[in-house]
């Protein structure tokens, strides 16, 4: 199957501290990969490299077959229009209403100027995440779970081919966390998106992962399905499943 993301020998250091050491990982079209690891192990750094927010020190990182480090500003912007990024805190534009948040990328990235079309897409995206009634609210009026859903809707509205999730269920209660995880799975099936999901939430990993990779001290130490890793011998990996 076609790989949408190909990472080969990726290295990244900050001030002499090597955060990522020789990471090799491929993401197939339409598949979800969950990245497990302790905090501060470079998981977020890895997905920021994928969208070109950080430049790797060494190695190759291709998205849709193109080397990210070799892209110019316009090519990078073009690539980003096909990628959705769900931030841990939602990163909602807090000076804008929900409607304006959703319209932001539509008018500026997809260059849609027709108000009726924007409204239709906004309503569709909100309905897809079960937030239809919140269109005129400000982000500050939304609860934690609603903010995650709203961030989801903003990611979906541009119909991305890849979605990168940075701890999508952190800070949510178990029930809401499960709802968000199911929503992620529904979205993946409905829109055939590929995704990298960074999480510590094993329930989320179990629901959403086609494959799981485990990152420890900057290296991928294990890879497999949920049940394969659940039964593997590695002590570090086992700590996530206990």
């Amino acid at each position, binding site marked *: 199957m076609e790989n949408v993301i190909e990472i080969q020998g990726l290295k990244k250091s900050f001030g002499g501290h090597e955060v990522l050491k020789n990471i090799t990982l491929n993401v197939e079209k339409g598949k979800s990969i969950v990245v497990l690891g302790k905090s501060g192990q470079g998981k977020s750094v890895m997905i920021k490299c994928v*969208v070109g*927010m950080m430049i790797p020190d060494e190695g190759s990182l291709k998205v849709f077959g193109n080397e990210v480090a070799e892209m110019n500003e316009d090519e990078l*912007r*073009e690539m*980003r*229009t096909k*990628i959705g*990024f769900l*931030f*841990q*805190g939602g*990163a*909602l*534009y*807090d000076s804008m209403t929900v409607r304006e948040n959703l319209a*932001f*990328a539509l008018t*500026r*990235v997809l260059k849609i100027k027709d108000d009726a079309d924007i409204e239709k897409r906004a309503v569709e995206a909100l309905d897809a995440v079960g937030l239809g009634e919140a269109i005129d609210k400000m982000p500050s009026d939304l609860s934690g779970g609603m903010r995650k859903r709203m961030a989801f809707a903003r990611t979906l509205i*541009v119909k991305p081919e890849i979605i990168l999730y940075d701890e999508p269920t952190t800070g949510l209660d178990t029930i809401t966390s499960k709802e968000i995880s199911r929503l992620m799975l529904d979205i993946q099936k409905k829109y055939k998106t590929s995704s990298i999901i960074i999480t510590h939430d094993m329930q989320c990993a179990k629901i959403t992962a086609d494959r799981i990779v485990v990152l420890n001290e900057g290296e991928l130490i294990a890879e497999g399905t949920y049940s394969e890793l659940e039964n593997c011998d590695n002590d570090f990996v086992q700590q996530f499943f206990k």
Partner: protein
Amino acid sequence: MNIYPPINRFFEKTGEQTNFFKAFLRNTFKGSFEWNEFIRQCYVIGYKSLGIVAVTGFVIGFVFTLQSLPTLKEFGAQSYVPGMVCISVIREIGPVVTGLICAGKIASSIGAELGSMNVSEQIDAMEISGASPVQYLVVTRILACTLMIPILTLFADALAVAGGFVGLNSSGASISMQLYFHKAVATLYFSDFIPAVIKTIFFGIAIGFVGCYKGYHSNKGTESVGLAANSAVVAASIWIIILDAIAVQITSVFVYN
């Protein structure tokens, strides 16, 4: 190359600021202009600063008149007070004081706003979505400052002249409004306005740029929001003083000679 660390940092920061200014210029002339955000920023920067600028302008004119009147009276030159207030305020005091007030109010608010957007990853979210945060956040704010600071300065100048009228009358000198304004305006030339307005355009660019740069490049912790606001005020104020010193040199050579 590893030179003395503070010198290294100075060159790094200078390079970073130059790149940021280049990004501002590139985004100003590229793509569609964010008119709605620009107008919103003009409202926030201009209209919402009218109060503080009005009070400051009026008090400057009032106090300046009260302070200068006794000295001029000794020489029988009190009739020169309206002209002196008018010239001083329009050429120098109005632009500098308005610039400093706006550096405090506007640069800090832009620094804190962009700093908090940076901390909450809103700027990253804009960039990853494929939109240009520089075009939406930076270009609109710097251009709004560039347009609004000269307007606010002229507004402060007008109120300072009015403050001078009140000051003169409250100190016992009875002078009609018509005579006061006649004497004030009679001393003014077009060449008094132009350098002052050009100077305030640069003040506006400096205030907007410093506020945006400090906020946009703040660190990721919540403490950095306060630091961004604080350092924006300090840097913008210093830039106002430096630009004013340069402008005075230029105008004294090319305009008033």
